[in-house]
């Protein structure tokens, strides 16, 4: 069939112009630019802060040993700014990656780590811990993060259990997830209703989401989870790409769709728990980052998942800068800023896009 066309295109192909190789190169370039942009934002995020430090002093404190810089600057940079920036990176990347995975396995553009009620349940867990004031015997500082994780895990078990009884299809999982979301939102409201004013204030502040709670230990834990799950899903990149053709087609290509969906579901729960436990409910990054990444690099999950993590980290680090600049000398909780910045961004995407896919 079309022999003349074959001959005509053979030359073009062997010369390497156009084809898949150029698509792959273009993607690699975009991911490279993404990392470069992320690096810039990270540097700016460390330079900016309520303490109005001189940029040069900050860089010296950051890069040189303690004896070369002012002790106050050194403490601010190393004990406050660096953990916050690293946390923005890890949480943004975790939520971006979790969002992309969720959109892929649920075949739904509205999916994010929060769609299935994980964050509402995590908020409920944290609120109960704050309300009751209980503390874990050996790890008092980890009481609230662990309570948040327990809440998220409970929601995940409910969604998975209900879906398993029926079928692990996107429709059933989304319906079960939305019901779970409403359940935990109501329970959270109940806890807030019962709380005394000062406790309520503490709960509400936790729910805002703030990087100010970051420590090197929490960064290490959330970062460890991110690295671990990245390694876990590494062998599944192409299977996830196949899933974008639809369940039946993926299945006939040899993908064990239900098994893959379960594995990715667990991964998303881990990523969301790791992110939410230490910084509270930071919304929207998990929804908007995958859409941006998809516009830039397409649907090949090798590029999409990496780019979603980079974009998520970029958006959150950017939001962290904005949070410090909105009210100079103060620190607006980042959870408030992400949605304020993210919504116009998403509207812009929606209105500009001429594509028929999501």
């Amino acid at each position, binding site marked *: *069939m*079309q022999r003349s*066309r*074959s001959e005509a*295109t053979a030359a073009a*192909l062997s010369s390497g112009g*156009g*084809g*898949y*190789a*150029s*698509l*792959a190169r273009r993607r690699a370039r975009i991911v490279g630019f993404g990392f470069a942009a992320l690096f810039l934002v990270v540097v700016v995020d460390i330079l900016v802060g309520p303490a109005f430090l001189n940029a040069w002093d900050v860089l010296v404190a950051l890069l040189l040993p303690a004896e070369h810089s002012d002790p106050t600057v050194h403490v601010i940079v190393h004990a406050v700014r660096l953990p916050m920036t690293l946390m923005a990176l890890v949480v943004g990347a975790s939520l971006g990656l979790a969002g992309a995975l969720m959109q892929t396995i649920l*075949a739904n553009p509205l999916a994010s780590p929060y769609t299935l009620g994980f964050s509402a349940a995590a908020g409920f867990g944290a609120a109960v811990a704050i309300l009751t004031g209980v503390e874990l015997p050996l790890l008092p500082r980890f009481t609230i993060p662990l309570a948040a994780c327990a809440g998220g895990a409970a929601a995940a078990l409910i969604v998975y259990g209900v879906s398993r009884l029926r079928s692990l299809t996107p429709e059933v999982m989304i319906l079960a997830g939305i019901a779970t979301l409403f359940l935990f939102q109501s329970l959270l409201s109940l806890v807030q209703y019962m709380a005394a004013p000062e406790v309520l204030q503490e709960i509400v502040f936790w729910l805002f989401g703030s990087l100010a709670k970051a420590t090197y230990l929490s960064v290490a834990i959330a970062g460890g989870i991110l690295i671990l799950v990245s390694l876990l899903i*590494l062998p599944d*990149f*192409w*299977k996830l*790409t*196949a899933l*974008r*053709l*639809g369940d*039946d*087609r993926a*299945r*006939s*290509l*040899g*993908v064990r769709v239900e098994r893959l969906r379960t594995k990715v579901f667990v991964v998303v729960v881990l990523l969301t728990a790791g992110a939410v436990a230490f910084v509270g409910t930071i919304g929207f990054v998990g929804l908007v980052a995958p859409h941006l990444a*998809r516009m830039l690099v*397409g*649907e*090949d999950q*090798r590029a999409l998942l990496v780019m979603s993590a980079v974009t998520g980290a970029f958006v959150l680090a950017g939001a962290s800068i904005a949070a410090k600049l909105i009210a100079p000398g103060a620190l607006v909780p980042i959870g408030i800023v992400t949605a304020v910045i993210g919504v116009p961004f998403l509207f812009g995407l929606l209105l500009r896009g001429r*594509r*028929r*896919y999501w």
Partner: protein
Amino acid sequence: MSLVVSDLSVRRGTAQLLDGVALTAAPGVFTGIIGPNGAGKTTLLRSVAGLTPSEGGVELSGRALSGKVARFSSIAYMPQDLGAVSALSAIEVVLLGRLRSLGLRVPRELVTEAEAMLDRFGLLGLQNRTLDTLSGGQRQLLHLAQAMFRQPDVLLLDEPTAALDLRHQVIVLEAVAAHAARENMVAVAAMHDLSLAARFCDQLICLANGRVVAAGSPESVLSAERLSSIYGVETEIAWSPGGRMTITPLRAT
């Protein structure tokens, strides 16, 4: 590498969707499955492909394909719908046909082979276009290119020409028949268009109510009496001077 299906039955609730279906499809031969809506054509293809649980045997050249893994590695199935619309590029769709060979890096030879496959369907110029920018016909050709890229022993197609214009219908069926003959592949397609089935298929299997009611050459299966009893339609069957069969539906009976 003959495909032998024996005593295949599918039951859903109280409904018997397939009832002891048996068929043999030889390699290099294009087999058409015809029958009215609800006859069990799709269920038959899906259960042979391992996508619908069934009872009975499926053998390929004497070897029983019992597990799903055995089915997926030998059988390529193309569903009736055109699949999800996404930002996947055309070449990626074809590459996915060899899912097991794909790693973090895609081997260069595999890309060259995928490009050659796209070229056979006249789609090479569209290789970097995303699925959403392709027409229904182009997407169907692309999925067919993917199925053939898998180099399956058996290709099962559910209504491969349903969404296509006349030219694309002919291109798709010619490609299937030619590929089956060249690669000694078993090709089985569920079809609604009886004239196209008569034109391209070497053998036809007629299903009604989940059972095989006739099997053989198109000339032997497509009689006016049988079409009247199976489809409830009065037809006129004519032969062209070149020996081609055409079926004209006259009225519902």
